Each structure stands twice: as structure tokens, then as C-alpha cells.
């Protein structure tokens, strides 16, 4: 070394630093996974913050209630329970016929008429209807033998035939 000043710049003999070296290595190795966990947590936190910010932005940008398109709500008709079945006030045609059979007078004629109508219109059984109607006309008064607007075609035909029988019987005598 020519320059005496250079002596100040020369390196020093290194002291034994093995203790520091080992202690520091152990300390830094312990810190490594901790730092990694922090980085992972920081990344997860940043992702969560981005998600929350995105949600907040969407919430802020949502259309005001007045701007929302109004959708006419079509009221659906409320489901209604099926109407309760009417009580069977009327019995079957056969039951009605038996009731008529056990009755007398005007009630007998009315019940046979009802039984005949049921046979004809509900059961589509003109034979049974004819039987009942004939019994009804047999029990009917002369006034009831007149054709009425509510009479069906079979009753009309029977009434007409009965009146003709009466006329024919008078002519014979």
C-alpha cells in the first residue's frame, strides 16, 4: 500500500461469526413461512376487498325505483274450490217411481211425471219414461191432460193420444 490513506480502506480480518450466522439463519428460516402466510392472507384479503367493492359498486349503480320499468302484474284468479256438489235431493228415477207408486192423488201424478222425465232426459230410457208418463196421465185430472209449454215431446204425444181415446170412446157410444 503506497498511500497511507489506503490503509484505512483495507478490509479487516473477519472475526468468528459462526454463532451469529447460525442464530440468524434459524431466525430467518422461522420467518419465511410466516411471511408467506402473510402474503397469502394479504392476497385473499385483497380479493375479498375487490369482491366487496364490486358488490358496492353494483349496489350504487342499481336503477332507482322510479326508473325501473313497471311491470303490470296480472292478477291470477284465485284458485277456487270446486263448488260443492248439490245434495242429492232428487232420488234416482227408480226411487221416484217407487215413491209415486206408493202415493195417491195429485202427488202420485206429479211423482210419476218427475220419474218419467228423469228416465227420458237423464237415463235416456224412453220405455221406462213411457211407463211412468202413462201412470201419471192415468192419475191426472182432466185439466192436467191439457198440453202445456213445459211438457216434453213424449208427454205431449201421450196427452194427445189420451184425448183422442176419450173422443173416440164418446163417438162409439
Amino acid at each position, binding site marked *: 500500500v503506497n498511500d497511507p490513506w489506503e490503509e484505512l480502506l483495507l*478490509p*479487516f480480518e*473477519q472475526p468468528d461469526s459462526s454463532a451469529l450466522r447460525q442464530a440468524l439463519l434459524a431466525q*430467518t*428460516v422461522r*420467518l*419465511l413461512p410466516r411471511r408467506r402466510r402473510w*402474503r397469502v392472507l394479504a392476497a385473499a384479503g385483497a380479493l375479498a376487498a375487490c369482491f366487496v367493492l364490486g358488490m358496492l359498486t353494483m349496489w350504487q349503480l342499481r336503477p332507482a325505483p322510479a326508473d325501473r320499468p313497471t311491470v303490470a302484474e296480472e292478477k291470477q284468479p284465485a284458485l277456487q274450490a270446486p263448488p260443492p256438489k248439490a245434495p242429492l235431493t232428487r232420488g234416482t228415477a227408480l226411487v221416484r217411481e217407487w215413491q209415486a207408486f206408493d202415493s195417491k192423488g195429485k202427488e202420485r201424478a206429479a211423482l210419476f211425471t218427475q220419474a218419467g222425465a228423469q228416465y227420458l232426459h237423464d237415463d235416456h230410457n224412453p220405455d221406462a219414461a213411457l211407463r211412468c208418463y202413462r201412470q201419471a196421465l192415468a192419475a191426472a185430472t182432466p185439466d192436467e191432460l191439457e198440453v202445456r209449454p213445459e211438457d216434453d215431446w213424449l208427454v205431449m204425444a201421450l196427452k194427445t193420444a189420451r184425448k183422442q181415446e176419450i173422443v173416440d170412446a164418446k163417438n162409439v157410444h
Partner: protein
Amino acid sequence: VPSADSVWRERGLHAAVLAGDAHAWQTWYEESFAGLFAYVLWRCGGLRDPAEDVVQETWLTAVRRIRDFDPSRGRFAGWLRGIAANLLRKQFARAGKTFVPLDGQEAAAPAADPDRAERVARALARLPARQEAVLRAKYLDRQSVQHIAEEWQTTAKAVESLLARARQAFRENYCDPARAGEPSDEEPS
């Protein structure tokens, strides 16, 4: 400028350390500890206690900031030296901070006088980065002027000139402790 091989090797070590591989960290540590300790000891004028403090703080800072290390910009050892230089600069920036151990502990080198060591440390801390680097290459790393010139991709004459200026600046800083106490604005590399 680090070679491509060293860049790839340090990238691999960096990735492994980031993944928490203790073996990769130990490899780096073992390779770099002695060089870093020698550098810090040199910068501390041979005082062992402050040098050990700075070395310890340097390694702890390196663990905390390992993510910032970029192998393409330089070697790991150089990055560590940069951290240590910053820590030394900060130490001198603290008003009234003295390098000399108050309990009179023995310095690293028997010849290292505490007062002289502190003046050397402050004089080096005051140097601009390039002048500090050329003094380090010449006196600490014992590199020849020709070798420095090749590594820095310049001429030997330019290195000689830079060395002369660096020695002159060091001398002035050493002789004027008040001036040397002011830390340099430039970060030593």
C-alpha cells in the same frame, strides 16, 4: 450485469423461497453471509458490534422484502449490500448517533481504534454511490483496475480516474468529520 445462467439460478431460488422453501433460503444465506458481513464490517470501519447489528437487520429486512428482489436487475448479494448500505445511511442520518459502542466492547480488529473506525465509516457513508463502489471493488474485493474496468464495461484509465477522485473524497470526508457526518443523498449500490 448478471449472466443469463446466474439470473435463471437466482430466479429459481427466488421462486422457491417465495414458496417457503427453507433449503433454497439456506443456500442463498450460506453463499451470501460471509460477503455481506465483510462488506458491513468494512463500512463500519472494523467495529464488530455495529456491524453485527446491521448484518442482522439486513437479513431480517431481506426476509420481509424478498418479494421485491428482482434477479434480472442484479445478484442477491448485491441486493443485500444495497439494503445494508441503506441501513448504514439511516444510522448516520440519526442525529447524535454514534457508531462507537458505549460499553467499550472490543472491536473486530485489534488495530481498529473506535474513533478512527467511526470516522472511516462516516467518510465512506458520505461518498457517492459510484465512488463507494469503486473503493469497495478495489480494497474490499481486491479486484485489479483492469478487472473492474472489464466488469463495468469501461476503460482502465476511467477506473483509475474514478479511484483517484474517490480516494480524494474519502480523504476530505475523513479529515472533516463535521462534513462527513452529513449523510450522502445518494444511495450506495
